[in-house]
């Protein structure tokens, strides 16, 4: 479904992404793990279209999307969540998620009917909030809710887009143990009918969710495989698992 071919991205002297090849198949969760600064976010930003690669190609559903704008990719079925929460802070949670629903209901050059009473938007937004356990907070302003709720909102917005492929950048970042477990349950539910490229530091989460795991170190993928393969890989143990 997603094919990343020979992707390169350099920042000054650092090769943040160094000749990366990655293939995500339909209906699998493919996790990327790697130490801080390994280039995980840089990789996802290129898939989402916010960063232009220096070289290489990104193919999605068999089409070359390397030069598409982020919004175009989103409408093709790519949704991302942000490692550092990025939402419309002055809006309510419901409004934030409604925006995600609105985006896939065709163009928004609609000038007359109030979006706040638009069942077409609200019903599905409430469903997405429900899925992450936020429906009782729907009318709270995003600025005022907790960090954990921000993380949940990120996921709600991404799934409300009903994407073909979800790109999740450390969805559990900064979450408590309990919140993380809840989110793992949510993702396990989503997993049944979605493809996910997951970046995550939380090893328990990764090993309980992922079908495939790739290990990224200094911009290079040093191993890709199933859970057992990755656990057993000596290079991975040395470079990453051993340290943490």
């Amino acid at each position: 479904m997603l094919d990343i071919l020979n992707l390169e991205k350099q920042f000054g002297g650092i090769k943040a992404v160094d000749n990366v090849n990655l293939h995500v198949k339909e209906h699998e969760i493919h996790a990327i793990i790697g130490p801080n600064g390994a280039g995980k976010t840089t990789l996802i930003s290129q898939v989402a279209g916010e960063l232009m690669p220096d070289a290489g190609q990104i193919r999605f559903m068999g089409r070359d999307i390397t030069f598409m704008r982020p919004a175009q990719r989103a409408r093709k079925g790519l949704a991302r969540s942000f490692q550092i929460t990025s939402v419309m802070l002055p809006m309510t949670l419901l409004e934030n998620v409604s925006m995600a629903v609105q985006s896939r209901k065709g163009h928004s050059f609609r000038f007359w009917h109030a979006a706040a009473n638009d069942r077409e938007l609200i019903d599905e937004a409430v469903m997405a909030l429900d899925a992450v356990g936020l429906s009782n907070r729907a009318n709270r302003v995003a600025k005022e809710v907790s960090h954990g709720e921000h993380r949940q909102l990120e996921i709600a917005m991404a799934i409300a887009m009903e994407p073909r492929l979800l790109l999740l950048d450390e969805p559990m970042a900064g979450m408590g143990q309990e919140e993380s477990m809840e989110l793992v349950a949510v993702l396990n539910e989503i997993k049944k009918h979605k493809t996910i490229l997951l970046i995550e530091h939380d090893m328990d989460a990764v090993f309980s969710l992922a079908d495939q795991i790739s290990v990224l170190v200094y911009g290079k993928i040093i191993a890709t495989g199933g859970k057992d393969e990755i656990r057993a890989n000596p290079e991975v143990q040395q470079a990453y698992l051993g340290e943490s």
Partner: protein
Amino acid sequence: MNSCLPRTLSGIVYTGVIVVLALMPVFVQLSGQIFYLDIFSRIMILAIAALSLNLLIGYGGMISLGHAAFLGIGAYCVGIPVYYEIYNGWIHLALAIVACGVFALVTGAISLRTKGVYFIMITLAFAQMVYFTFVSLEEYGGDDGLVIELRSEFGSWLDLEDNIALYYTIFGVLLLSLFFVHRLVHARFGRVILGSKFNERRMQSLGFETYRYRLVCYVISGIMCGIAGLFLGNFTSFISPEMMDWTRSGELIFMVILGGTGVLFGPVVGAGVFILLEVWLPQIITFINGLGLGAKLPHELWHLIFGVTLIAVVLFGRGGIHGLLTRKKRP
């Protein structure tokens, strides 16, 4: 029972403003203060212009310092046809819509590629281009401007030569504009505009081509301001490039901030307070001097008081006058 009566302080004030505007001609008739019909016609025209600017600044986060250009273009869309003895108001209106729409489309397409201070500067630059274009048009008076001998004719049912008819026409257009902006900002389109102000990057990653929505918003705003300009031309009967000077754009921004950015009714209050201060402050100084208290205040002092008042409202009433009216007591 009284569910349609306003309950909040701001709601009461804004309803009061509408009632005052609606009854002003009656007051003028009774009191003979003809002067106030002029003042309030001007206030309403500038309110429509500020309303259109609020769409950009308040809802869209696009701070344009060139909005007076649309006022000027709208006014010249009356002035130039009248110069050629074309008095049909519908032609003036169509011209204003097309001219401002095209100008907004072209300049917006370029300006909206930039952000922040660059956007402010580039909108200013485009407005100055228009300003100097009209200064150089000797045929239409250049620097000296153009006298509009007869006002737009919209048909036998409406005689704009009658000041009260003109007043109520402007009043009607103001109400329509308020209603229109209200619908617009609450509709899906308005949501996208607002969302892009709060977090453009996220809106793009949700799939919105924010540039296109902003451009359409810019065009709508420009056309609205052009219509205000059409009435300004009719109202003043004398137009000159001075009305699109960048200081005029600055005044419009002040009106928006004064009333409260992103508040539907803010620009109406902002325009009203701005113009009334401008009228009353010199009168107050004259009055104080007339009391014979010894030392005479320099007349120009009113500029200083005016400036300080504006700055005070902006600084201390965060959210402008609307902010003052809706402020909750901190426990």
